């Protein structure tokens, strides 16, 4: 632990929880939109954010009758903020749904080992959507296929039917703390040190662990 860490801890305490949540949400949103893979569902954060959104909506509903110019103006600010928060959450959820739809079988195979990857409602959506799709395929043509060819997650014949996210795609990453990441530079690959504030283009596979630890953020 060096002076930067100490300073970071002190300043983190000084920022109110609400603001830190906004920062975290924005970070999660950017990361989700940039990373090729789906990231773990931030359950606590989302719980807090949703709770606060609900409270603000109630506040707005309570005070709309008020014709006082001052509260009215305050209300507009609250509503504007509310819309922005809603947008963040909406866009975040939509980005996740998109990934869920893109790699359903891959995610289904991941879930048993990492049940916190998706929220319960997302898991429901995934399984329900997948069963819908396979029923649709079966009804359209698969049921008339010879039995050995009816599977949707076939890996025989040299071609896997399961689509996987490309973990080797490049992302822009900024280090929040000094840390080590895996870089593929020069074909061999090596551990490289990232200093706080550095912005690099790296392969997602190399920084995934650091992003999950919170050492690195995607931009």
């Amino acid at each position: 632990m060096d002076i930067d860490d100490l300073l970071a801890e002190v300043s983190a305490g000084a920022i109110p929880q609400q603001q830190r949540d906004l920062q975290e949400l924005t970070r999660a949103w950017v990361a989700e939109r940039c990373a090729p893979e789906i990231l773990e569902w931030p359950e606590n954060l989302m719980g807090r954010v949703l709770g606060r959104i609900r409270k603000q909506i109630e506040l707005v509903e309570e005070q709309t009758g008020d014709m006082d110019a001052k509260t009215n103006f305050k209300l507009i600010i609250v509503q504007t903020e509310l819309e922005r928060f809603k947008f963040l959450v909406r866009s975040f959820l939509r980005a996740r749904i998109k990934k869920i739809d893109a790699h359903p079988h891959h995610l289904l195979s991941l879930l048993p080992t990492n049940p916190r990857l998706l929220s319960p409602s997302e898991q429901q959506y995934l399984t329900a959507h997948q069963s819908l799709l396979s029923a649709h395929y079966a009804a359209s043509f698969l049921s008339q296929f010879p039995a050995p060819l009816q599977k949707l997650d076939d890996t025989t014949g040299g071609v896997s039917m399961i689509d996987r996210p490309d973990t080797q795609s490049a992302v822009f990453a900024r280090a929040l703390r000094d840390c080590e990441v895996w870089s593929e530079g020069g074909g061999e690959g090596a551990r490289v040190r990232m200093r706080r504030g550095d912005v690099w283009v790296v392969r997602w596979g190399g920084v995934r662990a650091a992003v999950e630890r919170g050492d690195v953020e995607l931009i």
Partner: protein
Amino acid sequence: MYGEIGNKLVQHAKRTQSLAHLPPYQTEMVRAVTREVRDLDKDVAAILEPFAGSFNPSTEPATACALLVNHLCMRRNKRCLLAYHRVRSDRLEEMCWNGVDVLERQYQQQQNSNRPAGEGDGSSSSLSPEEEEYVRQYSDLLAAYKGQWTDIDLTGSLEPPKDLFIDVRVLKDAGEIQTEYGAITLTKNSQFYVRQGDVERLISQGYLQRLS
């Protein structure tokens, strides 16, 4: 034979991606590809029959090769069919997300196409019956998932909001809407300064136009 129709189907799917509307479902082609797969499977069974389960590929390279080609073609056809259906179901899902009532539109299309032809055939529908069923179930699923996020309005605009209030012009009469600042009557060609959240639905449905 050997994947030719499958290829056509994939080309069709490729074309679908760049079209604004969904072209009619190629029932004939799908059936032909499925038939081809079944024929190939029968061929494989027929080739293997005389060997009675004791087939050794290294002693009969020619037969092994024929079998391989048949197997590969079946798999390829399957992939073509899956790709074709996936492209279409993706498109249908997108419509569901955008709040387009696919089935309603479908029905209208049929009505329109039936009218000039006098008695049009029922096959003018661009969706297969299976797809209609899929759309129905997917919208239910989507509604169920959305229902858990009532505060957020998941199908709302994905553009970051800049202003709380926006200028809109009414393109079609939409009747009266309730906002927290009282009721507004939306008559054609009138212009309003309203809260974006209140009218988003109407904009996506084409009743209002946003003025920048």
